[in-house]
């Protein structure tokens, strides 16, 4: 009996379904990615509240200030260090913020014209454990630079 020659042909696996899955993943990430909240510093642990719903209308001009503690990798506060403003990769004390606020104001006036500062909403993202007095100091600092509209941020809490 002549042994039958077995054809060893390699079938190339059809790649089309795999590419379809890749497209599905790509579409998911394209939709899920959020480019708007780039100014929201992750180091700030916002207070949680049920009434904190994302606003229906975004403010026309916004200045976002992140104010919080430096924490270690477990999320615990590093003792002895007062809370600071996280501004452009630096840690700034409230008292030293004047120059930065003036710069922000100048840039906004250059882009949007004079008197825009009356329409700017300062959004304060402050850590839930910071003393209120410091938040009030920060607000006063902004008021000294002619900012008048303020908005306090909190995370939406799911009960």
């Amino acid at each position: 009996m002549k042994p039958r020659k077995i054809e060893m042909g390699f079938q190339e696996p059809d790649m089309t379904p795999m590419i379809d899955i890749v497209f599905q993943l790509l579409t998911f990430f394209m939709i899920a990615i959020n480019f708007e909240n780039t100014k929201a510093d992750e180091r700030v642990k916002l207070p949680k509240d049920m009434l904190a719903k994302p606003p229906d209308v975004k403010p026309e001009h916004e200045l976002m200030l992140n104010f919080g503690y430096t924490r270690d990798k477990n999320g615990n506060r590093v003792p002895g260090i007062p809370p600071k403003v996280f501004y452009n990769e630096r840690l700034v004390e409230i008292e030293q913020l004047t120059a930065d606020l003036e710069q922000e104001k100048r840039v906004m006036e250059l882009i949007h014209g004079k008197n825009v500062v009356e329409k700017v909403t300062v959004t304060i993202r402050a850590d839930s454990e910071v003393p209120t007095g410091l938040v009030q100091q920060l607000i006063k600092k902004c008021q000294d630079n002619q900012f008048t509209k303020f908005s306090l941020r909190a995370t939406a809490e799911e009960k």
Partner: protein
Amino acid sequence: MERTKASEPSKVEIPMAPMIDIVFQLLIFFMLNLKMIAPEGDFNVNLPLSPNPGGDIEPPQIKVSLHSDRDGNLTQLTIGNNNLGNDNAAFERLNQEILKIIGRPGNPLTKDVEVELDADYECQYKYVVKAISSCTGRLDRQTNQVARYVEKIKFAPAHHPKG
């Protein structure tokens, strides 16, 4: 004139492999840039530079005070002269007191009512946010609608630190 035999339209092979490479590049870009953040909401506070430019008539004011110890923990929450306690239920009671004052949510007569928050310097910010939330309104669990109580909230001048 010799007519060249019209050859069959030859199949143009589009090289798919580089295109798939670009798709993978895009996928990796989006995967690395994805940042999952919890939705955040805003509470607007009214802090004009000049106190009451409107004139002599001051809108009715509700005074809410937050007293705390040196570590910032809440020791007492008061509205006017009423002490509401210092636990989570204190903020519920604040919510109910505000409702009593305004009558019903959305009451146009009380649109100008203003709440003045007076907090100790050390008082942790989260208590102030809770107080603002209790004054702002109430979330109906069933309809997920917010019934708004007071629109205007402002801060009293800051205290000095205790220590």
